[in-house]
């Protein structure tokens, strides 16, 4: 990426000259000024239709009693003001899903950042064929379907004939209710997601390490710094931006946690693994309460927006 970016800055320097030449040629042709709009508009309109407009629609729908009958005819839809929001805030299940999401984020994000950073640094300690071959195994979970992965783990977790309980029994431990105990289930579901999400971040951390000049390590080792000192005083400080980036993106994706709990537990037992995302899905598409679910989705949007803004702000301060 850095290789493709560097010529970009160079190209920008010549842009001013090129722009003049281009303008000269372009004015010759009639209607040529429409060209960029023709190129941009198909993709741009898609983004507006499926990215920007929905927020406005969601805000509007959240003020109505839109449900399955509203789907049939708009005449059945009524303006209800903030009733959906007050119903939402007095719904215990909503608060539980928020609490669950906070627990998932609290468990998942730090573990993912630390584990993927540690593995990436470890993988980068040698450039032998063996180490490079190992990388593939760590990347793999990141690109396989979450549904398939959840099924595999669901089978490993199975309380009757799962492999994990068998392994426990071989060392004399009692079986664990991996997915049916409210507390354990949270960990089980999070573990699958951690295992999966680490791969992508390992790739990012590995790439970031490639950008660290070798001279830094040479200088450090001439100064007598051992491998650990080099990791803590050279690698990690220089990976600051990557660590920040991974934390932000991981946090955002964990606030939208959905697939693993949906497949593994359907949010159960008794809502113990229902994330806010799963809650919105259930309200919207199982009970067809579109207005109510829209209200919940906007709350999630605001939370994500605020958390991201705070992170970006603290980052700016810590840079000063």
């Amino acid at each position, binding site marked *: 990426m850095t290789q493709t970016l560097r010529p970009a800055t160079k*190209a920008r320097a010549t842009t001013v000259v090129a722009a003049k*030449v281009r303008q000269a040629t372009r004015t010759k042709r009639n209607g040529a000024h429409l060209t960029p709009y023709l190129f941009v508009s198909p*993709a741009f309109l898609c983004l507006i239709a499926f990215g920007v407009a929905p927020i406005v629609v969601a805000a509007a729908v959240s003020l109505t009693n839109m449900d399955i009958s509203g789907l049939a005819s708009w005449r059945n839809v009524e303006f209800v003001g903030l009733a959906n929001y007050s119903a939402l805030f007095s719904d215990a299940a909503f608060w539980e899903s928020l609490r669950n999401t906070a627990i998932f984020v609290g468990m998942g994000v730090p573990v993912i950042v630390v584990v993927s950073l540690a593995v990436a640094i470890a993988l980068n300690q040698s450039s032998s064929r063996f180490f490079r071959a*190992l990388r593939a195994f760590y990347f793999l979970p990141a690109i396989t*379907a979450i549904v398939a992965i959840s099924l595999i783990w669901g089978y490993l977790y199975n309380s009757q004939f799962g492999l994990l309980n*068998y392994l426990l029994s071989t060392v004399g431990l009692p079986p664990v209710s991996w997915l049916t105990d409210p507390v354990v289930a949270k960990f089980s579901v999070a573990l699958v997601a951690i295992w999966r999400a680490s791969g992508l971040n390992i790739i990012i951390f590995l790439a970031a390490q490639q950008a660290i000049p070798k001279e830094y390590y040479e200088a450090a080792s001439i100064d007598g710094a051992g491998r650990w000192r080099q990791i803590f005083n050279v690698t990690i400080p220089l990976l600051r931006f990557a660590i920040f980036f991974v934390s932000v993106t991981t946090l955002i994706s964990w606030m939208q946690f959905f697939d693993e709990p949906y497949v593994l537990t*359907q949010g159960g037992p008794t809502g113990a693994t229902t994330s806010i995302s799963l809650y919105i899905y259930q309200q919207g598409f199982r009970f067809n309460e579109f207005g109510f679910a829209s209200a919940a989705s906007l709350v999630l*949007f605001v939370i*994500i927006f605020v958390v991201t803004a705070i992170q970006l702000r603290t980052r700016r301060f810590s840079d000063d």
Partner: protein
Amino acid sequence: MIRARRRPVLLALALAAGALLTAFAFLWMLTTSVKPLGEARRFPPTIVPSKVSFDSYLRLFRDLDFGTYLVNTVVVVLISFVGLLLMAMAGYAFAKFHFRGKKVMFALVLATMMIPIQVTMIPTYLLLNSVKLTNTLVGIALPALVSAFAIFLFRQFMTTIPDDVLEAARLDGANEARIFRSIVIPMSKPIFAVQAVLTFIAGWNSFLWPLIIANDEEKYTLAVGLALLNKQLSVNPPLQMAGASLMVVPILVVFAIFQKYIVQGFTMSGLK
């Protein structure tokens, strides 16, 4: 010196153990998928199947509709490839043209990256419902057709195309569509390769949106069919693992062939 040489060996062992754990999960999936039903439900579990049977795969296609799901998934992926062209066009315009509103439009494109699918899914469902596109494969592919991030990456790449080349073609009288087709696209092959592989993976694996939009079984994708298989037949591990293998093995093949592009693509998405 000796210390420095010894440590990677320990490290290699630790890393290999981690890799083995991942490999084992997939191996467990494959071996279970060829076990007879009784054996997969036996306790203690067997590591190596006593008898290799492809009955579960047969059942997926004969008794269940996985053939249809497979075709649907392929169709959805093919439709989403159309999006590649649209995103490349937009990236090209942002990279190589100056036009009124460009800055605002580009900022808007980047802003859409922050919007979670949970907010857009209900309005998008209502929108597609009003144009009768729910429960269609086009409806599954459409909302994910264009990704802001891919437009950004196309733009980044295409700024590296020298302006002189484009100007020379214009002076030779080539029209803009022709320039895009015969100069810009060929020069952008690397980014197309990366994006094509990522589009395939994303389309193949996507779950939440197809789950929402596909009501009838004949419109299910593999991911949706597989998730519902879990609900219906939670006591048939070989069948589930056969279904999971059907989803995972093509991705493994793609990964084996295009690993370079995949890693490159994810790296880009990490370091903008």
